[in-house]
């Protein structure tokens, strides 16, 4: 790992030093003010690019800014840094020497979201170097009852655990008080623990560096070597439970390293009529933390019984003293491919590509359980089924495509694609299932390496009339899956498109797709129950999993663009409708899924002095599903049926303008956007059944995001520019399932971080020097 990092850094240093040398000889270019039609800036005051964005002008700028928000929500800085005081700098240097051309671009070099991009080319080599830091803040002020001892262990004081255990065992021992082990009692018990918890932020940072080298760029043979490394460090929330009655959310450590090396070549042959290409690469993922342990707040010693997975409750107060969570294992992928494009007469091309991949994972397997009481009773669980996993997946892809334009107005396309994922991971027999390290449920199982393959064939033809292009085609998708309910699903899709251009300033594109998917048979026992040694019903009869269910699909896209008045004014209106209907076969499960959107964009540029733009989007997302509630056995009572109609409606509006107040001297630009999402959970259930009367959730997914940015720029002298800007953001969220979460709720300890609404704002003065 260090070797890759070292090589990367050395390359960056070498390229940078070349730039530094060349800068002194570089040419200067006059600055320009782009019209900025419809251009939106990268969000965030620290990320605010210069108003004058002539990328080939050399400049450096620095912000002096003030920033703040009314709460400490992580959402404000989810993927960005919003510093106070001096922020930036942003730097761009473009230059050339007699032998090379280069560009150095840097953003927020002093910040937690810094980015450095270097490009250079010469007759010998073209280099593309990127260093990028991407923060991902997931929640501030998380409150865990577990103290983080190391990256592999989190814990609670033994004294506290022993105290809670003894109190619970005493209460459980007395039949009169056993039934009082409920939320009210437990809340009172854990209240002192909650009040003494540590507070920390959830999130991680990606540090990425990539170097792409193209050798002999002027040569007909293209040779490219790409090196990549990413370090991910931090944490995220993890659902770590000791039973249905004892969820303990913890912070999962993240210490990932991903490295990738790839070589690709491309060569023209036969007078450029044949293009050969190929690549091969290795991608390695390493996780420094294989697993981590966490304490059960209610037990200091291990114990078990058949109901311990419900503890602490009136049924049991047993369970493990601590649990262990497996984290993503190290793995490696080798992949590559070869291909060719052959030019045929009549504007025809035959393309063929073959790709392969091999994915391997051989990490050590964890023990079956941490619970010594289970191990004492079941010595067979003392060792994992193997020391290491021995997992591997091979994939092969084949693409063959023929395109032709035998006449000026006729286009033909035919393609075939096969992709096969063969999971050759070793299968292991296990003696049963350990529920939350609390209860061993005996029953032989075998691990199931899922695989699949797809075959797709498509034929398309289009013909251009003078103002009308008509296109038609058919596609057939066949999916085969191993260890799934269906052996094969087949989808036939008809595609029709019509593009109309009645005037030079008007384009109306329309496309329609209608699909019909069917399966050979749907056998629930063949599904995930493949892991059971005896047939087991794993789903209610009548449920069809939506990835394999019979389905009718509609895809409608209509897009109208008009640019009258010589192109100064452009309006575009789109209509999109995606509809999947599973109703023919799915009594339960997903029945309908719909997405419908209408968007309108407008841009007006009457002169080089100013332009304005606006956009609006209305979206409707809906998923309708049905279920039936069961107890210990599958219900056959229709009164136990229920349905959930989950709907999100989103309205987005944005507008902005750019003004050149005094050409080459002063400019003003601003952008505002607002999005409102209103969700609704509409539940139905007939009275008298097990769910009885369902209650809707009116506040689900409700958010409102408002942003406004504005900047006034003034050129003080040829080399100096001053910018005065502000940035305001308002975010609201109301979700009855996710907002208002307290640290301890029935049967659950939550981290309850602040990732909620906020009011954030920034004002800054930017100084820019150009040379």
């Amino acid at each position, binding site marked *: 790992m260090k070797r890759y990092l070292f090589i990367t850094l050395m390359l960056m240093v070498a390229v940078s030093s070349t730039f530094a040398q060349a800068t002194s000889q570089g040419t200067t270019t006059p600055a320009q003010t782009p019209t900025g039609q419809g251009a939106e800036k990268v969000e965030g005051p620290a990320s605010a690019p210069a108003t004058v964005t002539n990328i080939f002008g050399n400049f450096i700028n620095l912000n002096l800014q003030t920033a703040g928000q009314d709460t400490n929500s992580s959402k404000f800085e989810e993927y960005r840094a919003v510093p106070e005081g001096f922020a930036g700098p942003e730097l761009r240097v473009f230059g050339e020497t007699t032998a090379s051309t280069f560009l150095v671009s840097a953003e927020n070099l002093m910040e937690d979201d810094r980015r450095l991009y270097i490009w250079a080319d010469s007759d010998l080599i073209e280099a593309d170097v990127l260093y990028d830091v991407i923060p991902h803040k997931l929640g501030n002020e998380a409150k865990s009852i577990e103290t983080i001892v190391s990256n592999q262990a989190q814990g609670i004081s033994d004294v506290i655990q022993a105290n809670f255990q003894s109190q619970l065992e005493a209460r459980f021992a007395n039949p009169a008080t056993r039934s009082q082990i409920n939320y009210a009692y437990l809340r009172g018990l854990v209240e002192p623990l909650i009040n003494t918890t540590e507070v920390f932020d959830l999130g991680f940072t990606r540090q990425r560096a990539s170097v792409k080298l193209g050798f002999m760029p002027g040569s007909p043979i293209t040779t490219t070597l790409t090196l990549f490394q990413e370090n991910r460090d931090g944490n995220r929330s993890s659902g770590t439970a000791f039973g249905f009655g004892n969820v303990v959310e913890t912070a999962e450590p993240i210490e990932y390293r991903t490295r990738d090396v790839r070589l690709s070549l491309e060569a023209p042959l036969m*007078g450029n009529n044949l293009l050969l290409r190929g690549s091969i690469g290795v991608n390695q993922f390493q996780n420094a933390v294989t697993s981590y342990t966490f304490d059960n707040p209610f037990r200091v010693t291990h114990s078990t019984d058949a109901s311990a997975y419900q503890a602490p409750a009136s049924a049991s107060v047993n369970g493990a003293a601590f649990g262990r969570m497996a984290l993503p294992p190290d793995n490696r992928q080798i992949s590559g491919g*070869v291909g060719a494009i052959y030019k045929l007469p009549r504007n025809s091309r035959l393309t063929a590509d073959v790709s392969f991949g091999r994915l391997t994972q051989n990490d050590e397997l964890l023990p079956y359980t941490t619970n010594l009481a289970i191990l004492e009773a079941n010595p067979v669980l003392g060792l994992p089924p193997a020391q290491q996993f021995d997992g591997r997946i091979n*994939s092969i892809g084949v693409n063959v495509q023929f395109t032709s334009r035998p006449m000026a107005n006729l286009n033909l396309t035919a393609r075939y694609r096969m992709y096969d994922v063969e999971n050759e991971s070793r299968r292991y027999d296990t003696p049963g299932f350990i529920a939350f390290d609390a209860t061993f449920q005996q029953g032989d199982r075998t691990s199931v390496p899922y695989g699949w393959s797809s075959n797709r064939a498509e034929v398309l033809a289009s013909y251009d009339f003078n103002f009308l292009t008509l296109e038609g085609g058919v596609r057939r998708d066949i999916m085969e899956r191993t260890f799934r309910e269906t052996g094969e699903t087949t989808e036939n899709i008809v595609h029709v498109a019509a593009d109309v251009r009645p005037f030079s300033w008007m384009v109306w594109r329309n496309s329609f797709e209608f699909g019909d998917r069917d399966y050979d048979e749907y056998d629930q026992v063949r599904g995930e129950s493949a892991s059971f040694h005896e047939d087991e019903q794993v789903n209610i009869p009548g449920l069809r999993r939506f990835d394999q269910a019979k389905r009718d699909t509609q895809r409608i896209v209509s897009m109208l663009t008009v640019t009258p008045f010589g192109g100064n004014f452009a309006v575009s209106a789109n209509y999109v409708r995606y509809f999947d209907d599973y109703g023919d076969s799915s009594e339960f499960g997903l029945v309908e899924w719909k997405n419908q959107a209408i968007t309108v964009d407008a841009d007006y540029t009457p002169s080089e002095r100013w332009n304005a733009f606006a956009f609006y989007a209305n979206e409707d997302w809906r998923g309708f599903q049905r279920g039936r509630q069961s107890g210990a056995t599958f219900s056959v009572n229709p009164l136990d049926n229920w349905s959930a109609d989950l709907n999100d409606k989103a309205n987005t509006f944005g507008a902005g303008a750019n003004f050149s107040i005094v050409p080459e001297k002063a400019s003003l630009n601003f952008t505002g956007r607002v999005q409102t999402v209103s969700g609704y959970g509409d539940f139905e259930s007939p009275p008298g059944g097990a769910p009885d009367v369902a209650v809707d959730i009116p506040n689900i997914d409700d958010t409102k995001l408002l942003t406004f940015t504005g900047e006034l720029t003034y050129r003080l002298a040829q080399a100096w520019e001053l910018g005065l800007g502000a940035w305001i953001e308002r975010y609201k969220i109301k979700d009855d399932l996710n907002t208002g979460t307290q640290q301890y709720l029935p049967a659950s300890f939550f981290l309850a971080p602040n990732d909620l609404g906020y009011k954030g704002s920034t004002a800054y003065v930017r100084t820019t020097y150009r040379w």
Partner: protein
Amino acid sequence: MTKFLPWSLAIAFLFCVGAAMAQTPDPQSAKSGPGFDVAECQSCHAETLFTNFQHTPHAKKIAGSCAECHGDVAAHAKMKMEGEEGIGPVFSFKRVTPQQRNEKCLSCHEKGRQANWHGGAHDRRKVDCTSCHSVHFFKSQRAQLRTVRESETCYTCHAQVRAQGMRQSHHPIREGKMECGSCHDPHSSTTRGMLKAESVNDLCYSCHADKRGPFFWEHAPVRENCQHCHTPHGSNHERLLVAKQPWLCQRCHMVTRHPGTLYHGLNATSGPTASNRAIEHGCRNCHNAVHGTNHPGSPYLGR
């Protein structure tokens, strides 16, 4: 058989490369247009040429630069100097069909990603190179796009994706840390959705290699397609999910006891009967390892 396939392909590839290197460069690739270069055309077309264009390979590395793309500029200049109307025999990108524009660009650029242009959705729908790129008036740092940021170019037509990007759960596109081109190749004709990988999962693994496995206990739809559960352009559900938990999981899991139970308004955080199967992360409060696990005792992905 499959064990030897990668090596066979690698050897075949090396053989082909060797054959390619033995070829003599095509003399046609060094063709040049008649007369006139950038400086001469600039006398009339200063606005077109005295821009970022002058620093690009188009201006610096192509002999007879203007003529290379615009044809007989000498005849055009002679015509104009003699006061004739029209543009003469020059190739004007504004006056030809999208396919003619594309053919002109592809005469040099039909390699790399662009080699797959023919037959793709953009090609078939008459989107042409100049719809997104501008040789003379580009604004982007890379690829000479018409807009400062790549995603703005795509939003010109794919407007709904811009709205999805404003959702509370989103990839860092609006923050400038990703672009549409991070996942899509607009020149491609061989993969669905113009993805830059052989499959959806292979693409997602390039940033989320921790989800790659293979695992001791797997989750079948996860192995097949990340998009069964995630929607990459933006969502108001946590972690870019297509629907909220537990109902997302209940689309496939309708077993006895809790998987088939209806969770509804009474189970909200504010109610007296809040359920840890509905609030916060729903099913994932217990079944955290939904992408797979190496824990042999956890077929239900709880550890």
